[in-house]
């Protein structure tokens, strides 16, 4: 199952549950408090996602750093690749 299908399945599941509760499609006779909480849920999920994104960006801004080990590793790999290519006859 691809990631897209997974997400579509999840979203449609939540959407169906939301529709069932909000429009009372199954005639469950839910208390009115349930409906009151249920109808703004899509907007609420959107706002929560926005808050999470903002917090992630803020946290990364507060703690960003140089990756010196990764830089060394990458430079070593570049050197290795250059030597390998030279052996195979590439002029640099």
């Amino acid at each position: 199952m691809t990631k897209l299908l997974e997400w579509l399945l999840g979203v449609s599941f939540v959407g169906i549950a939301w529709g069932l509760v909000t429009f009372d499609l199954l005639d469950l006779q839910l208390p009115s408090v349930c409906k009151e909480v249920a109808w703004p849920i899509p907007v609420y999920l959107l706002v929560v996602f926005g808050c999470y994104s903002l917090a992630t960006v803020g946290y990364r801004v507060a703690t960003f750093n140089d990756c010196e080990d990764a830089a060394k590793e990458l430079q070593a790999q570049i050197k290795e690749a250059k030597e390998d290519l030279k052996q195979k006859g590439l002029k640099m």
Partner: protein
Amino acid sequence: MEATGADQVVGLGLVAFSLMLFTYYTIWVIVLPFVDTDHVIHMYFLPREYSVILPGVAALFLLLCVGTFIGVVTWKNRRSKKLD
């Protein structure tokens, strides 16, 4: 290079702002329907329909900003290519 003091202030400010927004909005949308309508806590929140209207207005405003930005950038690009 590490994050400077200003970076930390801005970043933690963003985290604090989002946490506050999350708490306030959660109380507004999820908790308030379970509280009696004549309770004092209702004084600190707008009527319920605004919990959808305000995010909607904010989303429209953000989309407008993004659209304007993209429009301005593409327009400038096109103009500078003509000058070349």
